[in-house]
């Protein structure tokens, strides 16, 4: 559980190599591919941090849009007063605080209630902001700064690298182990001496902070933000689907879901722009039926079969 093993060094070297490739990508591929890569990087960040909490605990959070929207609005409203680079961590802090409050209020609830609450929360936040904007006669917020696509991409890749590092450290920590025990049997966890409520709230703050930071980073890309863009419920569902497609049993699992799904999504949005929700729902059903453990589960199963095959 502690100390570096040979496999750890291997995983680290592979990760470093993949990171270098990811950083060099904008110089290699064309403009369209970079746009797609920005989306991929964004969803890698969102799904990986989502899975850090929801993977071990099996609490499905649909609050991603709420945190993301909070981040975009922090950027939108804050740019008049503070620089971009300062607003990103501030958005992260806001996201963590919001997640902490939600966590304290809901994580004692069982799974289903938690799902409904998080979905309701994102919608409620959107409605409140719409209401406030209508009351003040404002429609949306213009974002005064702008970056080239590769800049967005590099910022998100840096954030992704940070999350993988944090996830890797948590996986080796007492907190990570506690979360796995809670996910398996909360009763055993409590009677083994684990403060289950505190562990869950602490870990839920990570996806909250990360989604808010992502929203803040990506806000200038929209140029103009309004509630329906910033708090789109579609985002929460996309994150869940991609994470489940990849599989949440391993840190790199969600990434394996993000890459094919982003490409598929690009095709769907281009060819069937009016049926995206329907197709999103369909893909969700297919994933749940055919790949309940995601690509990770499938890979581990194949690996297990090959090992058994050699044994006979």
């Amino acid at each position: 559980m502690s100390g570096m093993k040979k496999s750890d060094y291997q995983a680290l070297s592979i990760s470093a190599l993949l990171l270098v490739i990811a950083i060099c990508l904008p110089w290699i591929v064309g403009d369209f591919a970079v746009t797609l890569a920005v989306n991929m990087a964004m969803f890698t960040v969102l799904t990986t941090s989502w899975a850090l909490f929801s993977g071990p605990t099996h609490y499905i959070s649909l609050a991603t849009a709420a945190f993301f929207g909070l981040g975009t609005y922090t950027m939108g409203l804050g740019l008049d007063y503070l620089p971009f680079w300062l607003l990103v961590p501030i958005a992260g802090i806001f996201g963590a605080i919001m997640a902490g409050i939600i966590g304290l209020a809901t994580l004692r609830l069982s799974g289903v209630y938690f799902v409904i609450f998080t979905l309701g929360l994102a919608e409620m936040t959107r409605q409140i902001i719409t209401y406030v904007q209508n009351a003040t006669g404002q429609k949306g917020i213009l974002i005064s700064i702008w970056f080239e696509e590769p800049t967005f991409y590099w910022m998100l890749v840096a954030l992704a690298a940070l999350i993988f590092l944090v996830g890797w450290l948590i996986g080796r920590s007492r907190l990570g182990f506690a979360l796995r025990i809670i996910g398996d049997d909360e009763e055993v966890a409590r009677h083994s001496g684990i403060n289950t409520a505190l562990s869950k709230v602490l870990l839920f703050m990570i996806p909250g902070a990360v989604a808010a930071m992502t929203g803040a980073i990506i806000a200038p890309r929209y140029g103009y933000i309004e509630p329906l863009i910033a708090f789109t419920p579609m985002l929460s569902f996309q994150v869940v689907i991609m994470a489940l497609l990849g599989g949440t049993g391993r840190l790199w699992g969600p990434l394996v879901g993000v890459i094919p799904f982003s490409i598929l999504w690009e095709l769907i949005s281009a060819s069937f722009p009016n049926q995206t929700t329907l197709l999103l729902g369909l893909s969700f059903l297919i994933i749940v039926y055919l790949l309940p453990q995601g690509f990770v589960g499938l890979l581990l199963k194949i690996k297990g079969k090959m090992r058994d095959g050699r044994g006979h």
Partner: protein
Amino acid sequence: MSAQPTVLSLRGVTKRFGGLVAVNELDFDVAEHEVLGLIGPNGSGKSTTMNLISGALRVSDGEILLRDQLISDLPAQKIARRGVARTFQLVRMLPSMTVMENVMAGAVFGHRRRWGREAERQVMRMLELVGLERRANARPSELTYIDTKRVELARVLVGDPKVLLLDEWLAGLNPTELEEGIALVKQLRDEGRTIILVEHVMDAIRSLCDRCVVMSSGHKIAEGATEQVLSDPEVIRAYLGEDDA
């Protein structure tokens, strides 16, 4: 036995579920190195008592003290950390984890907290103690019933608890397994562990318990040395029913 200091005391412990009084004004002490049998017919309040001691349920009245410190107002995880470890009536495994990791849960978060190599060594010692050192990397689904019980026992032992609550730990075992199970608990007794045992198996009670507390309908109806208690007419009546006595 009476010379040993008291580890756990129940003082007027009462648990009400609405109008039903499941445990009524229960008092007893457990001395260090003692194996106390908590016995009685079904529905007499034994398991409720275990749940009250471990913090799974809150007392309605009365108090529970661990080494003279009040624990009955603490949440379950704090009671576990203070040194009360329990098994469950229906064995509970962590299904996605290996045997080693199941036991590690107790080593990392229990009363005596360990981490890293030290925790691993302690886990392996406990697996050897319960005879599962060869199955360290197995999954709970690959184990026999008694082996899952052994894992659970190792998980509660690994944190060096001050008191061990074994809630029908021997239930559901076949005769051979039962013998092995009794031998294992006997070994713990000989090591000087302090244990409260809720049990139905009479052979186990006779061979393991120094003393017994007998409960019926939430009340304590007898307490004393095992043989003496088991031959008490009131205890026999409680077990067999009024008509047979």
